């Protein structure tokens, strides 16, 4: 136990925790949406994220970026970031939709039990991991740096660095957009209707398959976005990169209240910050222990998570 780092580096730990938490939150949205609509824990979602990181990596290679290339600036920087991110989102979104078609839809139509679908999810997860391992090898691949990691200023001891600001700001914009989409648009209303009651929404003329596809697509797009941000921040990927992050994002979703969009955001940020403090007090190898102890404690007193609300009850 060592509180001196926590006190002397409080600002830095909080800021770094929020940045990591923003990535957790984006991935957590995918778990929470699918759970809200289908009551299914999509364990292959971490692999959708992993495919997004590869989408970012391969598109960066495709436009000629490599380990030696110099960081970009101005319009070139924005263009590069947009391209890499859109490719990552497209690949993750497509993969999520295909995943639903192949691994879940058949089971769902036959009314298979939850456990069956869960096993199918785990199978899909392993399949995707090993397929990527065979394709790209098992070693880390390095993502080229196109954004100079420049410290702009220091605030309460925290280095306000370009890549961290990019992650926080863009993740926040993305989540606001999603929240608006679900609560305002017609398609969003469809998602909420199915989450509330599948049978009734079918009677009301909602095309359930389309809603489910849409849900997976949105979850995949968010995971792809997170994958791209993760590459900008950590600059490394390989087949197994989704495992730990997936567990963390799932934890964030449960912590905030699974099935609740704002819960995923809050859960992600809280988890990121708690981990950061925990690692500073007990040492980095205790980070996960601290995070999961907090989760257990929260669930003991609030079994439905911090916000508790589910997607179905979300106000429109």
């Amino acid at each position, binding site marked *: 136990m060592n509180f001196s780092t926590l006190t002397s*580096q409080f600002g830095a730990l909080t800021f770094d925790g929020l940045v990591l938490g923003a990535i957790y939150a984006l991935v957590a949205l995918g778990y929470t949406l699918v759970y809200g609509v289908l009551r299914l824990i999509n364990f292959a979602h971490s692999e959708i994220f992993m495919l997004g990181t590869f989408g970012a990596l391969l598109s960066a290679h495709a436009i000629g970026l490599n*380990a030696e290339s110099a960081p970009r600036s101005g319009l070139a920087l924005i263009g590069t970031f947009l391209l890499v991110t859109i490719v990552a989102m497209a690949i993750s979104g497509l993969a999520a939709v295909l995943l639903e078609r192949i691994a879940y839809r058949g089971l769902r139509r036959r009314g298979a039990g939850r456990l069956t679908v869960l096993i199918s999810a785990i199978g899909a997860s392993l399949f995707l991991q090993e397929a990527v391992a065979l394709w790209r090898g098992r*070693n880390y691949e390095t993502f080229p740096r196109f954004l100079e990691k420049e410290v702009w200023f220091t605030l309460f001891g925290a*280095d306000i660095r370009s890549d961290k600001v990019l992650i926080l700001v863009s993740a926040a914009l993305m989540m606001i957009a999603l929240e608006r989409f679900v609560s305002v648009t017609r398609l969003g209303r469809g998602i909420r209707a199915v989450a509330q009651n599948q049978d009734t929404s079918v009677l009301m003329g909602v095309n359930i398959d389309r809603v489910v596809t849409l849900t997976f697509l949105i979850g995949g797009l968010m995971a792809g976005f997170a994958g791209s941000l993760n590459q900008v921040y*950590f600059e490394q990927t390989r087949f197994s*990169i989704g495992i730990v992050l997936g567990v963390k994002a799932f934890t964030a979703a449960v912590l905030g209240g699974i099935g609740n969009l704002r819960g995923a955001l809050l859960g992600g940020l809280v988890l990121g910050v708690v981990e950061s403090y925990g690692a500073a007090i007990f040492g*980095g190898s205790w980070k996960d222990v601290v995070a999961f102890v907090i989760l257990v404690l929260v669930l003991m007193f609030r079994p439905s998570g911090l916000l508790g609300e589910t997607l179905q009850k979300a106000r429109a």
Partner: protein
Amino acid sequence: MKVSFRSTASVLATLALALGGLVAVGTPAQAALPKGCKTLSLGFFGALTGDAGNLGKNISQGAELAVAQYGLKASKVKVDFVSFDSQGDPAQAPGLAQSAIKNKCLVGIIGPAFSGESMAANPIFQRGGLSIITPSATNPALSQQGWKIFHRALGTDAIQGSMGAKYIKAVLKPSKVAVIDDASEYGKGLATVVATSLGSLVVTRTSLDPKSPDFSSTISQIKSGGADVVYYGGYYAEAGRLAKQLKDAGVTATFMSGDGTLDPGFVTAGGSATDGAVVTCACAPIDTTKVGRAFKAAYKARFGVKDGTYSPEAFDATNFFLAAIKSGKTTRASINAYVSTKSWVGITKTLKFSKIGEVSGGAIFAYVYKGGQNTASLIK
């Protein structure tokens, strides 16, 4: 001698035929091989796949090269090469070791590659009387277990750690040091030796989680301690990531690590943050000698890639076994006795083992990185 040898062999062959017809008719007369064997085998034991597969592959290919070169020359006893892929996992090691000792034609093991799996597998090799020379497992405790079959072709982490600390004090001369590890058997052991040897110079001592992509809280800890040197005990992928995140966070301290980091993967992960980094290793740079350069060329020709960390040590260990076989030893017991008592002039050093299986003269080298390349010097 020749005549008597032949007659013994033919008597044996006749005997074997009479006993069960195991020796094929027409096989040329050979030295007395274990029953049912046409050739002897040497085996590699360690990770070929999995997270640390790179490290194991270097070792396995070094051993394979030695066996292949032996096969090119005319010899009385043919030797083939087998591998036991443990994935570096101590949980898989005992089962594999069991299957290894059941193979009667297997007379020597190059490995186990890592310390964790050695602890699990070596008692089984001891029971089977199967001689082992590890070219890479550096945990000091391994030679203290009373295993008669254990030999180690390089210096231990106790030596590497204390020499690393010596280098820090004598060359880097910092006022404060941070010592970090990955909480593994190897990383923590090595980092602890370094921290103990440095004593009061250490201002930060902590472990990180190697599975996490993010080391920011550990970096905050290092920053609040204000160290001029950061020592990391662990493996290459995390070492590279840590070096990079330190540099991005504005930490200018010299980065230093141990042999688990001496892999091209360190530069792949760390990029320009590896400039100025120092990595210690019990592995000798071999490109200064003629035999060393010949080894490098032969390795490149056979596998199409450059040799890696501990490839030369594995080559030496295998050649020691082959020397035993060449001198007419064909049983596990006689081969173990040979490598335990005799010596072998290899390309990295002269292998001569003490009673507990430690090699004499385990020198430690410092590899300093610049522009993705490293240059080695002996730590005196």
